[in-house]
């Protein structure tokens, strides 16, 4: 088994607000292996985008981060801002959600590439820069005839390809893609997903794909981590998780998706918790159909029901940690529409 290229341990990202800290990411651990695609799914507000930005060192002012982000024997969180910056791009690159606004409107595509390459490889000649840029663009299907055009001359799908080319031109080992296709049409989305799926094959690049779309995860990811209210509640090979979800939240989430095979409507009652005052115990317990007495008082302990699989839910034990009477079903309160998301 090879070493993980990126390994995150107990990462916390909290935002300060007037009403107290918001625990956007609250104790998240995972590993990313070379060349694999890990899907990070969750509903909006679960902290998945914050997590991605936290890994990149791109958090807004007033956010606190701790834990460990290990990349090549270095803890990224302890590096100086300058060293962090050197890693952004050639080692860890990011692709964003809205391609339309991610390119500087006053700069030609060519200038975006030369700026990026010159920043990290100052010795490149102009000719090499052009060659590398055209290669990267060509790989994304952008014709060389359009190299000197401005961003506004491209459609949304093409801009996202340019953004990907811009990320790949430095040949990073890790790419973090934050909802890369959400703003795009179905056919274009499929094109972009195909490009991302080809990444691992052609470049041995590890991809962290952050999305709310379970369909994308099922098709494009090797493994999946499900996030709820700032925590990863379940992780495993995507095939396994989709076939047999362990965590009640994963089950409910999969059940609520409307897909081509949907025959009835199901949904999760209630709304995700306010992350400045998360519920005690398991954060999902107020909405969980399987909630037990212990869930309301004690945070679940991570268990591994199968190799390569982990889940944080009291249903999977460990039984010796559950206090007397803890397995009694929890008396549930009525959840009104008034509290829905």
């Amino acid at each position: 088994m090879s070493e993980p290229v990126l390994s995150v341990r107990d990462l916390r990202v909290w935002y300060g607000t007037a009403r107290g800290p918001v625990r956007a990411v609250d104790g998240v651990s995972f590993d990313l292996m070379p060349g694999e695609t890990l899907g990070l799914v969750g509903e909006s507000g679960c902290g998945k985008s914050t997590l991605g930005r936290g890994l990149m060192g791109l958090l807004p002012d007033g956010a606190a981060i701790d834990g460990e982000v290990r990349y090549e024997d270095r803890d990224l969180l302890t590096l100086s801002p300058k060293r962090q910056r050197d890693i952004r791009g050639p080692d860890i690159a990011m692709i964003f959600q809205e391609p339309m606004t991610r390119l500087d409107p006053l700069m030609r595509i060519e200038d975006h590439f030369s700026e990026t390459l010159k920043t990290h490889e100052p010795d490149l000649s102009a000719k090499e820069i052009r060659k590398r840029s055209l290669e990267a663009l060509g790989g994304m299907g952008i014709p060389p005839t359009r190299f000197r055009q401005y961003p506004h001359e491209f459609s949304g799908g093409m801009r996202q390809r340019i953004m990907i080319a811009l990320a790949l031109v430095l040949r990073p080992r890790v790419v973090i893609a934050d909802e890369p296709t959400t703003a795009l049409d179905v056919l274009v989305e499929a094109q972009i997903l195909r490009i991302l799926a080809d990444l691992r094959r052609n470049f041995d690049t590890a991809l962290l794909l952050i999305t709310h779309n379970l369909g994308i995860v099922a098709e494009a990811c090797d493994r999946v981590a499900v996030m709820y209210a700032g925590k990863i509640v379940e992780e495993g090979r995507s095939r396994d998780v989709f076939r047999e979800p362990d965590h009640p939240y994963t089950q409910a989430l999969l059940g609520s998706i409307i897909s081509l095979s949907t025959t009835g409507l199901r949904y999760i009652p209630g709304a995700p918790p306010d992350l400045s005052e998360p519920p005690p115990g398991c954060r999902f317990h107020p909405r969980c159909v399987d909630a037990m007495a212990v869930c309301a008082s004690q945070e679940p302990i991570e268990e591994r029901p199968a190799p390569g699989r982990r889940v944080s839910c009291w249903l999977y034990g460990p039984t010796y940690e559950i206090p007397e009477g803890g397995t009694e079903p929890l008396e549930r309160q009525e959840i009104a529409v008034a509290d829905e998301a």
Partner: protein
Amino acid sequence: MPTRPETETAPLLDVRDLTTYFSLRGSFGSRLIGHEAGSVKAVDGVSFQLRHGEVLGLVGESGSGKTTLGRTILGLADATSGSIRLDGVEIAGLSESAFRPYRRRMQIVFQDPHASLNPAMDLLTAVGHPLVIHGLVTSPEALRAAVGDALTRVGLTPVDRFFGKFPSDLSGGQKQRAVLARAIILGPELLVADEPVSMLDMSVRAKILELMLRLKVELDLTYLYITHDLATAKFFCDRIAIMYLGRIVEIGPTASIFADPKHPYTVSLLKAIPDPDPDRTVPRDLPRGEVPDAVNPPLGCSFHPRCPRAFASCGWEGRDLTDLLERRWTAMAEEEFEQERSVVGDLASMEVASTTASVPAAKGHNGEDVLDLLKRIRQEDPEEPLWTGVRDMTAQGDGVLVAFAEPEEPMLRAVDDVEVACNLFDAVR
């Protein structure tokens, strides 16, 4: 749970050859020098019928004209030509004031619940405003009662708690419920729902769709459901119309379309939806490119530049040749590309939407050079569908004149129990 319409009665809504063009307001200057600003053909000849109690899905990507079609039916955009009949009465081309009575019978729900409520109005005022506008309430008590009733129907209870709320106090799902309450308070027959759930979170979508289905039964509503999402359309609609660049390319019962999609565009769409089925992988054979510009749509069938099954009469033209060259160059090494690029002149000057195209030679090259290049490209990949549509290539002094086959505009034709607009089914007929 699609519900089949019971009998063949007169349609509630009958749309015939509807077009909606938006003329581009060219700048003062461009009109001064005589530039034609042109128009966006947002809806370009659409016909369909909607029966009482039916749910028709209008499915398409952005730019397909589905939203404009919905807005035109509701008189929010002006129809350029064609007819819209509501219960047999023509409503296309009516003035704003003449249209007003019909607004009680047709309502709309917009995509973005955050933007569809006036941020400066509380729910009591906002939901009750339609009644005030049409002069249907006389007292504040009656207004409260009616609004309370509507809010109860959409599940915003206890209503007293919601009367004084402003949109900024509500969650996305709650806002969409409020919008639905406002839409049903006038007792409409037809509800146009423009992507009502696409801005909502996964776990909320099902709730809103369920609510809409319940309202349909309780209030005997007919829906025109506009969406880009085939999955919800499959679940929600009785019939589906697939739109591409202002036209319906395929229309028919939901089950038939999903079981046996006819139009190549429908086939690709179905293939492209990401599905949480762990055994699916990313599809490979997808149409290239993106939805073209609706100001200058492609000749013949609008989908032909992206169509994997296109052939001679689909409407090949100069722009397709440009695309072909650019695709070829994209895949080439830089030196090869530079070498070929130096032969051909400015491609942007090529004719748009014409069956002939002159490919200019670059400075220092003549038509023969360009012709040689084109011939070589054709030889290397004779399977490329474009070449089926090329009738003739002749070298002229400083370029090559390429003649394409006459295009054929696909019309909607009945194939099995659906209607398809595709030249492939021309032969079948």
